[in-house]
């Protein structure tokens, strides 16, 4: 009861603020007036009597105010106002501290939000997301690390069997998200599309915002329904959130679809990539299977399965039934390991059993370096605050002498650091936004993320962090500022004659330097790995060769006869474009696909395998292909026009295949039987250098080439050898040629090989960029730290320097004195940092390529870099000290 009254009163005082103070004054006036009336007639000046009786009105008011329940809040407000005033007086200090901390906060929040999106965040808008599981296949593969290989995609026949084996279970399928153009009227807008089973939304527990979701019969694969559900972003961006969108027609892949519903605003699919458009499985028929069977009877393993299991036993039962069903299905041309088993995994894909992509691993590991940046920033800020406190030693001594309590002074210092830190937090949110955008672009450039860059999570993270940092970084200077005895501080004046370097400050500098070394070492390691990967020869001349292929809207590829007619003609046309040296064509582009047929060796039951390669892949190529793509012919000859359809069959093998199939002999003239055992020999007429089949980093693989004229293969890619800067012209020419000769092609995909394989370099590029960015930040911050500490030391020792110079010290003596101190600190930091870097290197060593984490060149370079920074940062104050005019120095104060 009394509590209620008390709270009510306190709230009233808080709410009324100044008005409450005025009310109190009014109350006193009333009292004075009544007093004066009572005393009326007995004195000439009633006011005076009343005042005499009442005492000091101002004192009373202050007293009443101090009684005020929220006095401490008031005090903090005063401290904050005082802080803001003093910070305005030292803008250099303020800006340095705020920027330093804000960078630390921003970088960390960006990393946090990235990891949050990857690993922590359940998909929005889904009912009970923790019960949702993804289904994975685990195959046993001795050549993979761990002996198993796990993947998420099922062929449709298996998916169908798994569903049938679990009647009544909530189980849905989706395909990988792809980008499509949606045509509405005359405009085409890009959207990310997900193909799903009809029950997808009901399994996830999502209800339409407008209209309806798919009906069961719209999910039938044999009989496609062209209906679509759109997401909130698309609805707002393209349809202006018009409710009349339901029933509207749009075109996807030139096919009309009817919009039947709009998903709720918070639902953007269940993946990192946001989805704008959901369509039934069968509505997209462009799943080229390479056979005549409809897609839903083929082995395209692209259906991802999601199911709901409320408890572990239900999950086990589900997996058991699913596994039986999965193993019972036979699919033509599809061989899978019969020992494969099924695994459940979290709905958060990155937590599932599949191997994380290198980019994500890099992001995960490198996020620790963001913390290092923050630590460096904090160390620096503590140092700056300590210096500030030292400079104000006298002010603090005077205030204590005048009766300020220790508690009040500590309060004030802490309020100052918290104010600074919170201010930095606000700026940090801005930095986090920029850093987040940059990071996402770096990590997965084409991804349209389903989560915002900065959201309540990461903003809260920053503010919490800044509060903690502010409190902690305020404590050291607060305690140190109180230590000196009042008398010493007052007597010493504004400067100490006997200057003693502070241990704490030196230790903080050592920590900064050490962390800086670690970051620079990381940058060096990733840069060198990137360089190593970039200089791997893939067998093709990646900087001189472009690949060009037509793009088809959907459905099976173009008619083989058309391609056979058009591709050679366009290749010939492109060869005449200025800047083009040579143009050729092949059934697959370099590192962009391959063909398989059975191979036999005469007189042998089986062909040798090489690692996990049993049947070598081939590429059917035109005669100029080797010259155009830069593949070196090591022995024998390349294909010639005479190797025609009627001529005897010939092939060219690569080095590895020659070594594996005919060890110790020359492969030239040997016989290989292709496709059917009864076929005639194909004679090896040449051996070429190894080329990579898929990836930049891969073990040597067997591969062979066949003349285009001797196969039924369809030429799908044109390979052009060109001079620098000719890419634009080639692209234009190719577009024009395809438009004229293959009008049903949607466009042309023309790219230098170097650009095509660039995404594979991303993990190293990402690591190098992050480390360089963080390393440079850290270096700048550490330089500021060293500079400010040394400069402060010099300013404190001005008179000492004056005396030394007056007594005959030379410039180099003074330089040595000042530099010595700074260099010692930096030196210890470097040694410590190298030690930490060697230890931390173990964590990233699996991400490096062709270089150990203890690479001496990198370590030395990082140490030299830091030493240079330290010297430069010390040099400016050292020179200032050396140039001190003794007369001025001694006269001062």
């Amino acid at each position: 009861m009394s509590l209620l009254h008390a709270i009510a009163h306190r709230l009233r005082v808080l709410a009324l603020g100044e008005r409450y103070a005025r009310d109190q004054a009014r109350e006193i006036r009333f009292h004075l007036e009544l007093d004066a009336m009572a005393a009326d007639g007995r004195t000439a000046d009633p006011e005076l009597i009343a005042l005499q009786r009442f005492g000091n009105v101002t004192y009373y008011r202050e007293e009443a105010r101090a009684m005020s329940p929220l006095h401490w809040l008031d005090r903090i407000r005063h401290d904050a106002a005082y802080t803001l005033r003093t910070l305005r007086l030292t803008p250099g200090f303020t800006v340095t501290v705020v920027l330093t901390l804000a960078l630390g906060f921003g970088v960390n929040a960006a990393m946090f939000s990235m990891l949050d999106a990857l690993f922590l965040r359940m998909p929005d808008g889904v009912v009970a997301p923790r019960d949702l599981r993804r289904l994975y296949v685990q195959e046993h593969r001795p050549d993979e690390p761990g002996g198993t290989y796990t993947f998420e995609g099922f062929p449709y026949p298996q998916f169908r069997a798994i569903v049938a084996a679990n009647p009544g279970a909530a189980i849905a399928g989706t395909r990988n998200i792809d980008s499509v153009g949606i045509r509405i009227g005359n405009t085409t807008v890009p959207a990310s599309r997900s193909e799903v089973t009809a029950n997808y939304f009901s399994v996830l527990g999502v209800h339409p915002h407008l209209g309806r979701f798919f009906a069961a019969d719209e999910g039938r694969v044999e009989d496609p329904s062209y209906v679509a559900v759109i997401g909130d972003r698309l609805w707002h961006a393209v349809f202006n959130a018009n409710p009349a969108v339901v029933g509207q027609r749009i075109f996807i892949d030139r096919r009309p679809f009817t919009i039947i519903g709009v998903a709720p605003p918070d639902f953007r699919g269940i993946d990192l990539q946001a989805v704008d458009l959901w369509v039934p499985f069968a509505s997209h028929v462009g799943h080229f299977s390479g056979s005549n069977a409809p897609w839903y009877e083929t082995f395209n393993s692209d259906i991802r399965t999601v199911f709901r299991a409320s408890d572990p036993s239900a999950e086990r039962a589900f997996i058991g039934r699913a596994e039986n069903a999965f193993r019972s299905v036979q699919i033509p041309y599809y061989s899978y390991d019969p020992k494969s088993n099924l695994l459940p995994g979290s709905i958060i894909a990155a937590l599932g059993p599949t191997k994380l992509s290198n980019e994500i691993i890099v992001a995960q590991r490198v996020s620790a370096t963001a913390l290092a940046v923050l630590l460096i920033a904090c160390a620096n800020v503590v140092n700056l605050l300590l210096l500030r406190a030292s400079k104000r030693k006298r002010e603090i001594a005077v205030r204590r002498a005048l009766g300020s309590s220790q508690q009040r002074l500590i309060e004030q210092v802490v309020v100052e650091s918290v104010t600074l830190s919170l201010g930095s937090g606000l700026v940090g949110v801005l930095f986090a936004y920029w850093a987040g955008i940059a990071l996402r672009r770096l990590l997965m450039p084409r991804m349209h993320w389903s989560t915002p860059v900065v959201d309540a999570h990461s903003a809260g993270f920053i503010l919490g962090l800044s509060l903690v940092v502010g409190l902690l970084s305020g404590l050291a200077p607060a305690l140190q500022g109180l230590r000196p005895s009042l008398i010493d501080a007052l007597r010493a004046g504004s400067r100490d004659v006997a200057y003693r370097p502070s241990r704490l400050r030196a230790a903080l500098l050592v920590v900064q330097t050490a962390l800086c070394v670690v970051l620079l070492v990381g940058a060096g390691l990733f840069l060198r790995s990137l360089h190593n990967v970039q200089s791997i020869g893939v067998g093709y001349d990646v900087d001189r060769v472009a690949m060009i292929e037509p793009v088809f809207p959907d459905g099976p590829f173009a008619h083989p006869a058309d391609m056979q007619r058009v591709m050679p003609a366009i290749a010939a046309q492109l060869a005449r474009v200025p800047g083009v040296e040579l143009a050729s064509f092949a059934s697959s582009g370099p590192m962009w696909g391959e063909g398989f047929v059975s191979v036999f060796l005469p007189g042998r039951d089986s062909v040798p395998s090489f690692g996990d390669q049993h049947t070598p892949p081939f590429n059917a190529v035109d005669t100029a292909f080797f010259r155009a793509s830069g593949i070196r012919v090591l022995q024998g000859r390349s294909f010639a026009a005479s190797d025609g359809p009627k001529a005897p069959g010939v092939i060219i093998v690569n080095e590895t295949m020659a070594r594996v199939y005919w060890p110790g002999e020359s492969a030239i003239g040997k016989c290989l039987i292709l496709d059917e055992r009864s076929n005639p020999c194909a004679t090896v007429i040449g051996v070429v250098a190894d080329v990579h089949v898929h990836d930049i980093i891969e073990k040597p693989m067997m591969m062979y080439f066949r003349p285009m004229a001797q196969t039924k293969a369809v030429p799908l890619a044109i390979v052009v050898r060109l001079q620098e800067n000719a890419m634009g012209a080639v692209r234009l020419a190719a577009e024009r040629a395809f438009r004229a000769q293959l009008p049903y092609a949607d466009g042309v995909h023309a790219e230098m090989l170097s650009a095509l394989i660039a995404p594979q370099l991303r993990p190293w590029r990402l690591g190098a960029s992050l480390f360089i960015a963080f390393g440079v930040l850290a270096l700048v911050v550490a330089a500021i730290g060293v500079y400010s500490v040394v400069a402060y030391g010099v300013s404190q020792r001005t008179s000492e320097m004056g005396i030394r110079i007056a007594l005959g010290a030379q410039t180099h003596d003074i330089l040595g004195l000042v530099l010595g101190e700074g260099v010692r600190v930096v030196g210890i930091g470097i040694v410590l940092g190298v030690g930490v870097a060697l230890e931390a290197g173990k964590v990233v060593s699996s991400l490096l390529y062709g270089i150990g984490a203890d690479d001496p060149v990198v370590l030395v370079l990082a140490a030299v870099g830091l030493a240079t920074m330290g010297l430069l940062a010390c040099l400016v104050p050292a020179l200032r000290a050396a140039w001190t005019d003794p007369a001025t120095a001694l006269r001062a104060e």
Partner: protein
Amino acid sequence: MPPSTASRSDLPLGTLDMLILRTLTLGALHGYAIAQHIARLSDGVLRVEQGSLYPALERLLNKGWATARWAETPTKRQARYYTITRSGRKQLEQRAAEYDRVAAAIARVMTSE
């Protein structure tokens, strides 16, 4: 009106709150009336320092033992009227009991031979 020369006696610590609460049991009163009441009943011996009266009232409000509101006096002026709350009465009972105990003890000491 008591003589202006009458010595003002200092109130023992804590008793002012008790006196104010006791006075407020008469009904809602403004500060001046509270001071007048205490002075009159004590025949001018206990003169409440106005400078300590208002902080004391503020304290009572903070503790929730009294509430205050602005109201019109019979002479059509605005004044702040204080009212005792239920917990204020409870507090008063406790203080009064304590005071009785101490006063009796003091009396015993003073009247002993």
